[in-house]
């Protein structure tokens, strides 16, 4: 559920011949919001809903859910695989290009040939979605926050919250806290301990370093680091072994998307518990429900979509393999659906 640095780099693919036909449309007098067009898709918001239309179809998503989903899609650089905003609308990452779709992962739309999709250069669509998020997010709403931590997104245009939506996701190159690498989180840096992690120990590892090994001997309190996360459902890289990325995150309420995996994705529950709804990636049919408690580790297969529910804010270690050869394997169908058979 995290992205690799590699995929971020691949978002800018100057050789791509995919569409760059995106457009910021005028402000609606009644609501104060702009509309946005990407090829045949037009996106509008009103007081309660995002309204999406394309040649032959329309769709409505409550705007709180839409903004939370769009925020992740942007923050993750379109992410691995499929980001279902809901059962109808979403994006597919092709690593440098991205497909915007309606009904592509919905049996009924596909069987009736009512699904619609268009492929864009990632940088073009990313620019449009960032403009959209900036325009559609009012001053009281933080799409990264849990519902008990933010105001409501409803109503007519009412200010902006650029500080919330422009948060930079930190990615460690080797490990958080190493000299020159991603910094620790502190009160001073604007990362207070979250209310739901008030009891998490803030002690630091006892490190004795011999002179000359300051860049090698290093440790940090990962749980304290996660207790200071100011966002939910937004993995960030904390330690790196080759393409093996530990991407822990803090989770509260509902994962704002149904993530359609294109590869195996591992979850190690570090604290508290999350329930996962697992549905078939292609059809959306329920397949399983996973309850993960502290210490549980499991894999999401490559042919499912998943959505998580966490009442108590919890710490989840998302473990990804960011190898650039995996998109090729996915493309030619040789990527495994499950990581281990036994």
């Amino acid at each position, binding site marked *: 559920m995290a992205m690799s640095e590699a995929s971020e780099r691949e978002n800018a693919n100057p050789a791509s011949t995919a569409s760059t036909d995106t457009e910021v449309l005028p402000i609606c007098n009644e609501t104060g919001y702009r509309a946005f067009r990407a090829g045949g898709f037009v996106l509008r918001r009103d007081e309660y809903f995002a309204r999406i239309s394309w040649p032959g179809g329309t769709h409505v998503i409550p705007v709180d859910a839409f903004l939370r989903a769009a925020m992740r899609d942007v923050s993750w650089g379109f992410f691995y695989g499929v980001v279902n905003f809901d059962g109808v609308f979403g994006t597919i990452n092709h690593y440098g290009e991205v497909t915007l779709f309606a009904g592509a992962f919905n049996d009924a739309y596909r069987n009736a040939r009512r699904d619609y999709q268009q492929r864009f250069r990632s940088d073009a669509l990313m620019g449009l979605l960032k403009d959209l998020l900036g325009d559609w997010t009012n001053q009281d709403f933080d799409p990264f926050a849990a519902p008990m931590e933010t105001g409501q997104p409803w109503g007519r245009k009412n200010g902006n919250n650029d500080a919330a939506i422009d948060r930079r996701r930190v990615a460690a190159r*080797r*490990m958080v806290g190493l000299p020159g690498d991603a910094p620790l989180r502190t009160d001073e840096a604007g990362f207070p301990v979250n*209310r*739901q*992690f*008030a*009891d*998490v*120990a803030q*002690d*630091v*590892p*006892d*490190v*004795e*370093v*011999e002179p000359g*090994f300051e860049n*090698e*001997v*290093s*440790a940090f*309190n*990962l*749980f304290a680091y996660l*207790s200071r996360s100011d966002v939910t459902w937004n993995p960030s890289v*904390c*330690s*790196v*072994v080759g393409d*093996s990325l530990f991407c822990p995150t803090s989770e509260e309420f509902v994962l704002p998307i149904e993530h359609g995996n294109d590869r195996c994705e591992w979850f190690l*529950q570090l*604290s*508290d518990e999350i329930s996962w709804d697992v549905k078939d990636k292609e059809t959306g*049919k*329920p*397949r*399983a*429900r*996973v*309850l993960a*408690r*502290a*210490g*549980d*580790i*499991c*894999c*999401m*297969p490559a042919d499912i979509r998943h959505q998580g529910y966490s009442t*108590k804010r919890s*710490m989840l270690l998302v*473990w990804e*393999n960011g190898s650039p050869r995996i998109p090729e394997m996915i493309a030619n169908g040789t990527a495994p*659906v*499950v*990581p*281990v*058979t*036994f």
Partner: protein
Amino acid sequence: MEGVVTQFGSLKDYRKGGVEIIEDDPRNYVFSNVFEVAEGAEPYERIAVGKNFEYVIEAARAEGTSSWFTCAHDEFVLCLDGRTEVHLIKLDRPEDYVDPESEGAVRIGEDTLPGRKMGRISLGRGHMAALPTGAAYRFHADQPGVILFQTIEGEVTVQKWASICQTESV
């Protein structure tokens, strides 16, 4: 928030969840619990609990003093229960112990190693330490604890999926 309690697991106190099937095979989820795995493990037996191509997450029971390990690439260790000391030595000639092109940790059968002391780290719950390329490392825990490795599959990696993973719907 008043009375908030963050639930971390431990060897002595963990509650395992599980996979509830609608239409699927529980094996697809490779579901285990690291405390349960460590509970049934020999000290410092490095049991794979996650695997993604060549990469693995290994769980180990920290208890007493381990042998020395080294590795031709970075590894990281995360302490999930108890208190574990990490001792680090910069090997004079790491290639005497591990093929520089190899992957995964190797166990060293010697107690005293030629090299310079790099440092010592005492890890509590939730603490993560780097195990840098070219270093030898070993652990000590007075009381049983649980540690986790972010590494690559190698000769020390124990795989016994069928005995640690859920195979039936809960």
